């Protein structure tokens, strides 16, 4: 037992004190910054994009589809003009699909300011605690691993009252990952209906938001999203824990 306790001494404080302003490594591919004036409309970026997230004239990137692979940035820099650059800005969550589209000259501040609207009915109920049931509906396990990482000693999401719970009956909402397979469609809806009202729906990752690389897959059934309202979209492939936690905090708290 003493050896176990001694381990505690080898570990300094591991948690990130200020999660809202945590420093992100510069190599991280987060919010893209676009410069339309440099764009020559060569369409090389749109052609190389595996998910069809980019359109040119004017240059736009849909974060709901983007896998943040960086292929467009590379091809633009090498073959064209360098109009696309991925910044390391990680607060990417938004409450409407339209807001996920990044336009020419969108700065991180602009994006973040508009992305999540403060709603009284949300913060008055969930301000101090929100519990989620996570449903993996075809997710590749990278978003799931990152969501698990949200609760580890580094990110420690529990201190904000955000947690994942085992039963939908104990949850305030569901977090969906994956493109929603035909085989999971029923279980997902069942889980949603088992969650007491009012209930929140969060889509996590490119697959959940748009189908991502699985948009054209044959065994996908996304009817759930037509039937029920989605409250929050969190882009990423996979979603970084800081992206997830900050999006939920922006959603449940007054700014």
């Amino acid at each position, binding site marked *: 037992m003493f*050896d176990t306790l001694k381990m505690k001494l080898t570990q300094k404080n591991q948690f990130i004190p200020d999660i809202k302003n945590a420093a992100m490594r510069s190599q*991280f591919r987060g919010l893209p910054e676009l410069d339309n004036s440099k764009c020559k409309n060569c369409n090389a970026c749109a052609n190389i994009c595996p998910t069809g997230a980019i359109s040119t004239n004017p240059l736009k990137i849909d974060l709901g589809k983007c896998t943040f692979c960086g292929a467009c940035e590379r091809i633009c820099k090498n073959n064209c003009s360098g109009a696309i650059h991925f910044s390391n800005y990680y607060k990417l969550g938004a409450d409407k699909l339209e807001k996920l589209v990044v336009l020419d000259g969108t700065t991180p501040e602009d994006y973040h300011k508009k992305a999540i609207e403060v709603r009284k009915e949300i913060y008055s109920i969930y301000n101090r605690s929100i519990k989620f049931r996570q449903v993996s509906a075809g997710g590749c*396990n990278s978003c799931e691993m990152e969501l698990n990482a949200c609760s580890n000693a580094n990110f420690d999401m529990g201190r904000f009252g955000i947690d994942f719970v085992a039963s939908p009956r104990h949850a305030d909402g569901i977090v969906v990952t994956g493109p929603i397979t035909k085989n999971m469609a029923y279980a997902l809806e069942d889980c949603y209906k088992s969650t007491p009202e009012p209930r929140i729906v969060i889509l996590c990752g490119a697959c959940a938001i748009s189908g991502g690389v699985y948009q054209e897959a044959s065994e*996908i059934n996304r009817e759930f999203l037509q039937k029920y309202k989605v409250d929050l979209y969190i882009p990423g492939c996979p979603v970084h824990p800081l992206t997830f936690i900050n999006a939920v905090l922006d959603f449940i708290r007054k700014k």
Partner: protein
Amino acid sequence: MNYIAIKNNQRINISDIPTVEFNSLKEQLAISNLRPLAFFGSDWGDKIKLYTALADDEKGEILVSSALIDKNLKEYDSITKENHQYHMFEREFYEQFGILPKGHPWLKPVRKNLDSYEFFKMEGEQTHQVAVGPIHAGVIEPGHFRFMCSGEKVYNLEIMLGYQHRGVEDLMVKKPSNQLAESICGDSTIAYNMAYSQVMESLGESVISTKAKLIRRIALEMERIAIHIGDMGAILGDIAYLMGKEVYAVTRTLVINTMLEISGSRFGKGLITVGGVNFDIDEKMSDKIISMLSQVKDTVNKMTKAALKSSTVMSRLEKTGVVSKDTALELNLVGMIGRSCGIELDSRFDFCDEFYKDLEKKPFKATNDAYSRFSIRYREVKDSIRFVKKLLKKMEERRADALYLEPKKFIPDSFALSIVEGWRGEVVHIATTDGEGKLSRYKIKDPSFNNWFGLAMAVRNNGVSDFPLCNKGFDLSYCGFDL
């Protein structure tokens, strides 16, 4: 047996693969003592071409053979009756092509979701069923588990998967991309993307630079280190040894954050591409990796020693979920789980390339239980840290190499196979091209395809409450199986 022997990552013409009469191929497969790597069909005009691949681990060769089957064939005599290693392969073939393997002991869908699904039943006084899933208590992927119990003791576990089935193999033919390969099984991002890229390169006989090969292997070993450390924490978390859980979790963070510094993604997404790699490891990064790994090794050593000294940890790990070596051999368990049962299979060394040739693994003494599955991870973390350091050393002479070389076009009517030892075990990707040089079939076999049945055997005669511990020890892939 009539076959063509190929090496890992080798392209052959489809016409060079001998076409054997179906019944004689079946007979040979049934009595062969080599383990199957593939058994899958592909559309061939009005016929079905059945490809089979056997692994000769001692010689480092893959024996490929094929047969033409009439589409109107209704049924054939099952191979599984004689050779249990074909159990899942035949079920999959039946699901995809509808030809019934007569006499198959437990013919059920692999990925299709039926309205009614028959489970193996046990009846009697005080017996009961426990049904879990598809949605589980934690943040994990979906699957259904059905336990047949008497009291607390599990007599049989049946695992029903397919919830994650997205149609990857068809999509791969339609729209292949590195990004799709990375998203098939996200916890093995590097292994999958590497196998995919190698198959694509083999189909065109493209070459990539030595530096790119080295970076791929460094990333592969780093992925192994990260996931193994995370899993060691998860195993300890399931037996409520929370210090271990948290310390391993934050140690894993060090590894994946270094991966982020290399590639811009904590899982290494975007690192590997067909034709090479997208990101370099320069001297500065190389030093960073080495110092990070020394720190990781130090913490893991201390934590593991402290954990294994604790009697409460040992009493839960030892003798829990035993899979005997005979059972493991019969079921063809592969990869890290196979090694924890005493089967010395490791495709890095069995199908050796120039880089792993002079790396050495230390022998592992398997005890076949949950402790074995914990300590094999510890051993492999230490091995991999050593490998990464050696591979980084080799990088020094290769600084001037190109990262990316333009890949060549696919050669028509080709067959290529690539095996990559991911952290779970062998990830097998196979692709064929048609007469115009377009992809015509893409087949993936995850190590979980072999190993799920091993988990079912491990929980027999254990308490229901030991299931999470066994499950974490195996840590199999749902999406890699379901595709």
